[in-house]
């Protein structure tokens, strides 16, 4: 599959018109000006497939599942196919030494130009022994691969922020890509898993403009992570009206009311689920009746129960009863002290008579 992308697409039955529409959609999704759609189409159509190396570290393969399985029949899947994915353990046919050789070759041939995708966190405890590939620790592999990369994409919450492996008590000493690599442009695409369209959007931007899209303070593309789930949620009007589902099977739940009281983390979660949706636009967690877990935010796993509303205590109150007892005890003690003081004053009180005053 060499040659410009547009030819490859044409061979696969994708018309130029469909491709242009796709680019326009991507451009508008990323809040780029209308002209960017055409620029994107031209740049992408002419693009030679850039080399992409995908390294899986301490992960569950959910990110790969998300990208490949749910979107393989769509044009996003095609575009994804059109990059030269030189190393991806789950998808590649090669195994063992052959696979490692493919990685080494890709890194050598495209030194300084390849795009490095990481999914999974990087364990640091016990010299990284918790996760190794071909006898080498993840941290070692990451440092080597990052050195020749043009840019790095941290796929999923684990690579972006440490994710579930980093959850308290973090037994493996898991860290994110940006904790280790400091000298390369890194774009975080958090989510557990992230939305496939976000991934292709970032790739398209990179192919078109030769740079990563504008990022927020957590390294996420603003175009997709600029709004919270809550702000874009179709159930938002119910929140504003104070109409909440109280349980997962009550009248409110059946009427599609707001899931805030059932622990929805939409108000503090930045992601594009509410607009881009999942499974080719079929649905998304809140639409299917479950509150947002906040999976695209750092340390979402340690943010209290998924089923407790944001305005309620993250944990049951621990000191309340003890504090009440101590408070009552102090009150009683102080009142005894006050009584004693009064009684002492009473006993030492000397009566003043008229005769005393006339002295």
């Amino acid at each position, binding site marked *: 599959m060499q040659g410009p992308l547009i030819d490859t697409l044409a061979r696969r039955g994708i018309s130029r018109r469909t491709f242009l529409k796709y680019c326009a959609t991507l451009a508008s999704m990323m809040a780029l000006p209308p002209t960017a759609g055409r620029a994107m189409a031209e740049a992408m159509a002419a693009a030679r497939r850039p080399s992409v190396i995908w390294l899986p570290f301490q992960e569950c393969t959910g990110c790969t599942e998300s990208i490949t399985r749910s979107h393989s029949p769509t044009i996003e899947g095609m575009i994804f196919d059109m990059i030269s994915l030189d190393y991806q353990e789950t998808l590649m046919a090669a195994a063992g030494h052959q696979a490692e050789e493919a990685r080494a070759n890709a890194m050598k041939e495209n030194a300084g130009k390849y795009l490095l995708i990481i999914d999974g966190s990087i364990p640091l405890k016990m010299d990284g022994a918790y996760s190794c590939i071909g006898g080498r620790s993840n941290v070692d592999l990451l440092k080597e691969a990052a050195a020749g990369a043009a840019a790095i994409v941290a796929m999923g919450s684990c690579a972006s922020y440490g994710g579930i492996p980093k959850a308290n008590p973090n037994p493996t000493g898991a860290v994110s890509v940006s904790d280790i690599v400091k000298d390369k442009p890194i774009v975080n695409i958090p989510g557990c898993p992230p939305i496939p369209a976000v991934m292709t959007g970032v790739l398209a931007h990179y192919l078109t403009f030769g740079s990563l899209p504008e990022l927020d303070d957590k390294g996420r593309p603003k175009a997709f992570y600029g709004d919270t789930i809550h702000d874009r949620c179709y159930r938002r009007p119910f*929140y504003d009206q104070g109409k909440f589902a109280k349980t997962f099977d009550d009248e409110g739940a059946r009427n599609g009311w707001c899931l805030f009281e059932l622990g929805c983390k939409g108000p503090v979660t930045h992601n594009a689920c509410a607009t881009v949706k999942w499974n080719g636009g079929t649905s998304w967690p809140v639409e299917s009746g479950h509150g947002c877990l906040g999976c695209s935010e750092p*340390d979402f796993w340690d943010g209290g129960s998924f089923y407790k509303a944001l305005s309620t205590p993250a944990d049951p109150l621990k000191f309340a009863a003890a504090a009440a007892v101590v*408070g009552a005890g102090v009150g009683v003690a102080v009142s005894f002290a*006050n009584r004693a003081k009064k009684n002492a004053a009473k006993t030492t009180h000397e009566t003043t008579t008229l005769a005393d005053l006339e002295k």
Partner: protein
Amino acid sequence: MNELQFLTWTRGPGLNIAVGILLLGVLWRLIEIYTLGRKKDLAAPRHAAGASGLHTVFRRSLPPPGMLKRSPVSYIGGYLFHVGLAIIVFLGAPHILLIKNLIGLSWPALPSQFIGLAAVVTMAAMVVVLFDRINKPVKHFLSTFEDWFTWAVTFLPVLTGWMATQHLLLPYTQMLALHILSAEILLVVLPFSKLFHGFTLFGSRWYNGRVNAHKGVPV
């Protein structure tokens, strides 16, 4: 500490500490105040219409004759921000949810837009009352650090809560965490400052009314 960790801290250990100090302080002070006792009044009680503890509890909520005209800002501003605070705290959906989670009681909420309006009115009233305190020489003279401090401690939760829901200045997560933190500071300060009037108000009115009723004076 990122903002979600900050928020989780305010919802977890922070709330724990704040509620603990509030309960400790409130019980301590209430028990201390109510066990102080007074000497028995040996004079025979006089009777007058309208002189009782209960009458005074209500009467003290109304301005004495002529006072509304003399200091309208204190009365109208005071009413507005007290009623506004009560609406926000007791009729805002997230607040009711917190109360339900803590003590199990709940009731219907008002729409969030109405709570937002109440917050704006409350803040405006509080700012006007503050300027009045600064501008009126007597009020200014009588004000101590505690007065300025308790004003700020009361104002901040309203401001941060409103800014969080309106998405102003900081991202929602940070503002929400600041809002909860400021409310926790209020809870900690409450039992040990003049804000304790929230708990002693009716008791002290009753007491004053009762003493005056004994003397046959409706106040």
